């Protein structure tokens, strides 16, 4: 029974070897000419300002949370849309209920002002 998992084990071993191999090989073979600009942390091409360890506004967390909620809604839509015809009217109705419940939450956070930045 465990033999059925052998290809997965092989895949894991090969991917680890490939990743490690690329890192080790480039550290030996690649040229190293460090300069001040090259060693700077990458900040989307801008000049880095100050320390990265600052307190973030709570708004970021709120937005992140809301994003996850509605992202999961979208994730549920994909398998449903693939099986849309097979699920028939019942599937459509159930998805309607699901979206309606999320819509209530959406209207709530909108009216509460959770989506306004200022």
């Amino acid at each position: 029974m465990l033999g059925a998992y052998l290809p997965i084990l092989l895949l894991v071993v090969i991917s680890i070897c490939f990743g490690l191999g690329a890192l080790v090989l480039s550290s030996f073979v690649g040229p190293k000419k460090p300069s001040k600009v090259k060693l700077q942390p990458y900040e989307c091409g801008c000049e880095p300002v100050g320390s990265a360890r600052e307190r973030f506004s709570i708004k970021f967390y709120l937005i992140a949370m809301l994003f996850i909620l509605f992202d999961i809604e979208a994730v549920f839509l994909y398998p449903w849309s693939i099986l849309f015809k097979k699920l028939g009217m019942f599937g459509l109705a159930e998805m309607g209920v699901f979206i309606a419940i999320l819509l209530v939450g959406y209207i709530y956070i909108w009216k509460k002002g959770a989506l306004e930045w200022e």
Partner: protein
Amino acid sequence: METIAMPAINFAAIMPETILSVIAMALLLINVFVPSEQKAYLGYLSLIGIVVTFFTVIGGWGTPQEGFNGSVMQDNFALFFKGIFLVSAALSILISDQYMKREECNHGELYPLILLATCGMMLMASGTDLMTIFLGLELLSVSLYVLAGFQRDSLKSNEAGLKYFLLGAFSTGFLLYGMALIYGATGTTRIAAIASYVAQNSLAGSNLMLLIGMVLMAVGFSFKIAAAPFHMWTPDVYEGAPTPMTAFMSVGPKAAGFAAFVRVFVIALPTLRADWADLLWVLAVLTMTVGNITALYQKNIKRMLAYSSIAHAGYVLVGFVAGNAVGTAGIMFYMLSYAFMNIGAFAIIVLVGKKGEPNNNVEDYAGFGFKHPLLAVCMSIFLFSLAGIPPAAGFIGKFYLFSGAIQAGYIWLAIIGVLNSAASVYYYLRVMVFMYMKDPVEEFDWLKVSPAIALCLIIAVAGVLIPGIVPGYLLELAQKAVLL
């Protein structure tokens, strides 16, 4: 093109849950569209919703409904517990209006959250699949975390919410791990199928995975019902949470925890009975003793009632260990009467407090009996019932729990229970000694009793006294609801 066959749905099996969740969502929307001064009628609307749901629960009595491919089963057992949840939600809503206005945290989200928590409890009571029970538990817990921290300006309330969240999430991990191990051992999450798989393959006693899964589930449920040694969160959370929410938390979720606990262990793991009965025996003794002895030392009345609620979970566990019809009917009868007496006592605590001065110490009740004789009589009735003194309902409930244990042969357990109950009389009576036999430290202001709280007190007193004097009807209902 073939269509996917849908499992048997049967919406009748989740009728009460559907009604409550639709009303909760409607209230959420009304709350954001109506200006903030007119929040009072959100409470009335949610009460109407609860009453409507209560009638569907009564209408469903006697006709078991199975639905959603056997993952939900609305039988008499579930319906009786749903009644308890609705009663506790309604009484808590009645006392929260005045409290929330006084403490200036009258946010409309309170009512949808209470209704959703009740909805989660109902799913826990009627779930016959470990996943359904878990979903119900999460819906309940997440709503309760928010309700515990509902007073956003109060440091204590924030602490209660955070503490409850962290410890609750941790215990949920235990429960889920237990469920996963049981699924691993049996290959199913349907509790009836678990029982038949365990019996067919005679896994009981030999399969370690099943045994560990059972113990972990017991830990998870014990946290929810606040049984020692998993009770550490209770006093802090009960003390910090807004008082009406403490009342709600100490009754509804505890009953829901017991409903799921009993259903899973009695239906899914009857073959392991010898193992879990021993485990619960120890838990029951520990819970009663730790709860009662610690309550003796409490100065703060909310903490005192928190420890007393731990002790009451211990008494109910006695009925669970007994496992016979008398003991199980005793669990249901006791949880219902506990709803009335405990929420009633918390209603008085709400009344005695003032904005910024919770007046939660036992000394604050000195002379209360002369200034407010009627309220003091109500408080005495609730305390007598909590102590288990006839003719209150608490006495009948305890009588049935302990006589169930004696019939099942757990004589020592019953003796320890009665001794504990006797010890508990001390701290309940101490409040009454302060109310009637001490002079007030400072002059009482005239207390304002809102009509809602007055109604709550009337219902609670009736709910304590009527089943205490004529227990026949309710006991008969509880016996018809037993899962055996």
